[in-house]
Structure formats: C-alpha cells, structure tokens
C-alpha cells in the first residue's frame, strides 16, 4: 500500500505554447515555491483566520439557545446537544491524530485503538488504583502510553519490511492482544465487557453532572484545538514534508539523508500520544471506559472517519470524525423513532441499524469522492511497475 487519497490539486486549463509550457498545476501549496493564483485561493483556508473563527464559533455554542429541528433534539445549549457535540469533537480530534499516520505518512495502523483505550483505562485506573487526581492521572497515562508507543511502534515498524500490510497486521495483533486483555477483566481491573464507569471521585466537580456539560464540551473543544494545533503545525513544518516523502517514496527520502525509521517512529508516537489523550477525553465525555474503544473495529471506525472526510487534508479528518459520530448517534435516535417504526419493513430494517446507513454512506464516499491526490495516483497507475519497486 502506498500513497493515499488526499486533497484536490486543481489543474487550470492553459493551452501550452511552444517550448515553454506555463505552470499549470497547483499542488497542495507548499512552503516553497511562488504562489500562483490558484495557490493563493488554496491558501485561504491555511492561514490562521479560519481555524480561529471556527474555534471561536465552537467555543460560543454553549451560549446559543438555537433550536435546530431535525439535527438536534433540543436547543444547542441543552446538555443533550452539548454532550453529543462534545463526543463529536473528541472523535474529530481522534481522527485528526490518526490521519497523521494514515493520510500524512501512509502508515495504515489497525492498532490505534490500543492507545485510545490505554488513555481511557489508564486514566481511570490511575485514579482508582493509585488514587491520583484527574490531571496527574492523565499525565501518567500519557507517559505510559507514549513509552508503549515507542516500544511497540519500533516493533511494528519492523513489520513494515513485509509491506504496508505487515505493519497493519502487527499493529492489529498488538491491539487485539490489548483488547482480549481488557475483555477478560484481569483481576477485576477493566470491568471486562461491561467497562468501567468514570471514577467521579477524582474528577473536579465542574466536570461532573448534567448541569456541567458545557464544561465537558469546552474540555473536548480544547482537546480538539490542541490536536489540530499539533497536527497542523507538524505537517507544515519540514518534518511534514518528510512524512509526505515517506508516503510517496521512502527509499528516496533515505538517500536524501533523512532517516525514514526515526520519522515513522516519530509520527507513530505522536499520533499515539494524541490517541491516549483522546482516550482520556473519551473517558470524561462518555463518563466511562468501554472495551469497545480497544477493539480493532474502533480503529476501523477512525479509518472510516478519516477517509470520509478526506485523508491527508487539513480539515478532512476533523470533519469526518465529527460527521460520522454525529450521524452514528443521530441515526440511532432516528432508528428508534416513530418515524422509522412507521415505515414498511423493507425500509425499516436497514434504517434500524445505523451501521447499514453509515457503511453504505462510507462506500459511496470512497467511491464518489473525487480525492485530488487519489486521482493523481490513478494517473500514475501506468507507471506503477516502476514506482512500486
């Protein structure tokens, strides 16, 4: 598995003149290279203005009593809506972090759930078993998760020698082991398939209870903002280009003088750390740790989110994460609503399982979404014999 779908590179039509063909392409505008007119428009979303505006708008949502009929059950600032939105934001952040590996570096990991679950269970257990407060507990989970990522990442990347699938499978194996461990409820620690309710004793009161949902929401937003800041900064730094280079042609990168292994391990650890943090947020927002967060399916869901939104792009994974989570939650509500119950069986059956709708939607998105880089890949199919080697 090599490159991945990603942003759109608009080619403008320009009749070539003799000899000197004018530049006709604008790629994902990079740090170098003079910006053509199309590049400038592509940059509109790259400056700090857009993220700040979005962040501000999101931060103000808990002050809005707006009613959005079909989308939300209550006003925006009702705890139900805020809870839903907070969960969406957490997944937006998780997806963004996951895409650091998948979309930016071309590393397909099936084991990201291990770190998310590590964050959730680690934080919880640090609070219940070690009696730590919330922040120290998160810190401990983060430290432990990062250390594990360094170790397991190094081993998993060794599997990369067998190609992308080798890496995917080794990460899957580790995650699977973690998942089995969680589900077996060793020493009564993890609660097995039942999970653990959040140990509210160690959590500040401001984050507990329905009346404080807005605070939880802001916390989730802060996590998302942090993740976005880290991810976006990282990919716009030189190291981001190196990741992209690894995705396209790893050997070339090494001959330039960059160590591919260290860069891959770096991105793995960074993404995993963001995953651990996301796991802690998931614990707080959902008020519990669930074994689901440790399963390979959870990682698949992240993958689906990332691709749905557009992997390797700035906003895509974030939007995908938010959208998927929103639909997942809302479709479940829709499925049990009278609206669906009144439908004839042939429609009701598929609508009663959100996964039918989401899975189908995803297939359509993969199929129809005109991923820019994906289309470039397509043109390269012809040369694959050369590049694959």
């Amino acid at each position, binding site marked *: 598995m090599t490159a991945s779908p990603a942003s759109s590179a608009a080619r403008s039509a320009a009749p070539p003149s003799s000899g000197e063909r004018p530049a006709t392409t604008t790629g994902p505008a990079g740090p170098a290279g003079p910006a053509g007119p199309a590049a400038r428009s592509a940059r509109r979303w790259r400056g700090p203005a857009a993220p700040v505006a979005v962040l501000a708008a999101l931060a103000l949502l808990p002050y809005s009593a707006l009613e959005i009929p079909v989308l939300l059950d209550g006003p925006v600032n009702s705890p139900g809506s805020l809870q839903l939105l907070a969960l969406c934001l957490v997944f937006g952040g998780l997806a963004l972090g996951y895409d650091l590996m998948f979309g930016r570096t071309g590393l397909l990991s099936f084991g990201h759930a291990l770190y998310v679950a590590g964050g959730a269970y680690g934080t919880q257990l640090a609070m219940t078993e070690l009696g730590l407060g919330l922040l120290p507990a998160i810190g401990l989970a983060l430290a432990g998760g990062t250390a594990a990522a360094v170790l397991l990442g190094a081993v998993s990347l060794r599997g990369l020698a067998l190609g992308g699938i080798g890496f995917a499978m080794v990460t899957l194996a580790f995650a699977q082991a973690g998942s089995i461990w969680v589900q077996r409820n060793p020493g009564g620690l993890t609660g097995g398939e039942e999970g653990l309710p959040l140990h509210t004793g160690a959590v500040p009161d401001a984050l507990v209870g329905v009346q404080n949902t807005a605070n939880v929401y802001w916390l989730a937003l802060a996590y998302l903002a942090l993740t976005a800041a880290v991810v976006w900064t990282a990919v716009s730094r030189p190291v981001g280009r190196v990741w992209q280079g690894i995705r396209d042609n790893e050997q070339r990168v090494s001959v330039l003088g960059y160590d591919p292994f260290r860069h891959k391990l770096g991105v793995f650890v960074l993404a995993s750390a963001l995953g651990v943090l996301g796991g802690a947020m998931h614990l707080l927002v959902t008020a519990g740790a669930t074994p689901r967060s440790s399963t390979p399916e959870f990682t698949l869901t992240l993958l689906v989110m990332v691709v749905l939104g557009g992997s390797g792009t700035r906003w895509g994974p974030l939007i995908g994460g938010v959208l998927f989570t929103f639909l997942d939650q809302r479709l479940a509500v829709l499925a049990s609503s009278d609206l669906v119950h009144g439908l004839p069986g042939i429609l009701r059956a598929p609508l009663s399982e959100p996964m039918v709708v989401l899975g189908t939607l995803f297939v359509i998105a*993969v199929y129809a979404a005109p991923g820019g880089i994906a289309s470039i890949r397509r043109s390269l199919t012809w040369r*694959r014999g050369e590049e694959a*080697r």
Partner: protein
Amino acid sequence: MSTLVLLTLTGLGLGALYFLIASGLALIFGLMDVLNFAHGAFLTVSAYAAWRTAETVGGTGGLALAALVGTATGALLAIVVELVLIRRLYGRPREQILVTVGLSLAVPALVQAVWGADSRPFPVPDALSGTVGVLGAQVPVSRFVLIAAALLVLAAVNLFLSRTRYGLIVRAGVEDRAMVTALGIDVTRAFTLVFAIGGALAGLAGVLGGLYFGSLSPHQGTSLLVFAFVVVVIGGMGSIPGVALSALAVGLVQQYANYYVDGYGDFAVVVLLAAVVLARPAPRLAGGVA
C-alpha cells in the same frame, strides 16, 4: 493420550476451518493485492442463504444443496461487488480496501436487521452430528468433513493457479493493469473471475462454518476474519500452500494453548504472529533501483 489425540484432531479441524476462510482471502490478496474486509460479510450472507435452503429442504441432501447455494451466493455477491465497486477502483488499492471495509460494516448490520441478532441453529444432519472414536477420543464427525473439504480446496486452488493463465494475468494486472491490456488481454474479466472464486470460497466456508458451529449469526463471519488475516499473514501473504500450513499451525497452537496454557489460545496466536513477522527476513530491496 486420548486428550492429546482429541486436541490434535480438533485442532486440525479448527485449522481446516481457518484455511477454508483464509484461502479465498489469500487468493484475492495474493493475486489482486486487495485485503478483502468484506470476505467475512460474503461468508455470513452465504451462510444465511445456505441455512434458508437447508431449512426448507432438510436432511443430508438439503445440506448438499445448501453447500451449492452458499457457494453460489458467495460467488454471485463477489461478482456484484467487483463489477459495481472494486472494478472502478483498480490501481487504488487503498480505496479498494476501504470499500470492503464499508461493506464489512454495513452487510452484517443488514443481515442482523433482516434475520435478527440472535444466532440461529444450522440444521446439521444426524450423520454429521455424531462423533467417531479415535484412540479413545470422541472426535466430532464434522471435523473430518472440514479437513476433507480443506484438502479439496487446497488442491483445487493450486490446480487453478498452475493450470490456467489467470493467476499470471491477475498478478501482472495488479502491478500494471494498463500494460496487461496493452498485451491484448481482457484483464477485467480475469479480475472478475478471481474475485468470484474468492467469493465462492467464502461461501463454501460459510456453509462449512455453519456445520462446524451448528449455528450462524450476523457477526460470525467478521469475527472469524481476524484469525483468517492472521493466518494469511503468517502464511506469507497470499501463498496458498503457505496459508494451508499456517492455518494448521494456528489451529493447533490455539487448541493446545487453550487446554494447556489456561485458555491463552488467542494470546498464543498473537504471539505466533508477532514472532513470525519479526523473524521473517526483510525482503531485499535488491534490484529495486534498477
């Protein structure tokens, strides 16, 4: 002694089940480079089709018919998926995988919506539901059926790959599809055929899985898929004899570990996978820069 015999024979049966599932997966992965996540979904749907057939017809004859219907369902499903989805995405292996991921989420959910979440008993004819005494061990007849089926499939797939040009066409087509057509070969047909065979193998595995478990449920196929992946990877990514060996190893290791190491069969398999992957020498980059 009889315990060891029992564990070994049932372990072989388990290996046979894994091989039946993994063979189609490995065929498609080895030739087409598509890690088919929908394989489990094909398997599940086929198993349900077979179940409906066996329920209506009944008896050993019903089971034979069910096996046919199941295999055909798998093949048909695969053809439809190939024609409608996979075909348009050639040269984009990642998107192909993602499409099958989408199917692996949607299809079992749909099956569940239609037939319910509860597992259904699979009508196993009396002739196949008993046991055979081997050195004091009571080995279920169905295990022998699976082992026989696995050997047949192994032979058939090997024959297909060695006696026809399709294997070659598809392997070449994955590398450079355009170039295969430039040699005057209708590559799309070959791809559809191979995908259909993969689907048929999934279908057959679905039916035999029903026989093995005596029941079927919407998520059975998907949950078996993880082990099938492991088998394919240990077997060396797409080599059919390799997959057969690795299925055997995984089946036995899991069975022994579950008995002797306190139910740690799953962990044992994971450890086996990690060991094999890490011990395998990295393929030389030799000549890669010609």
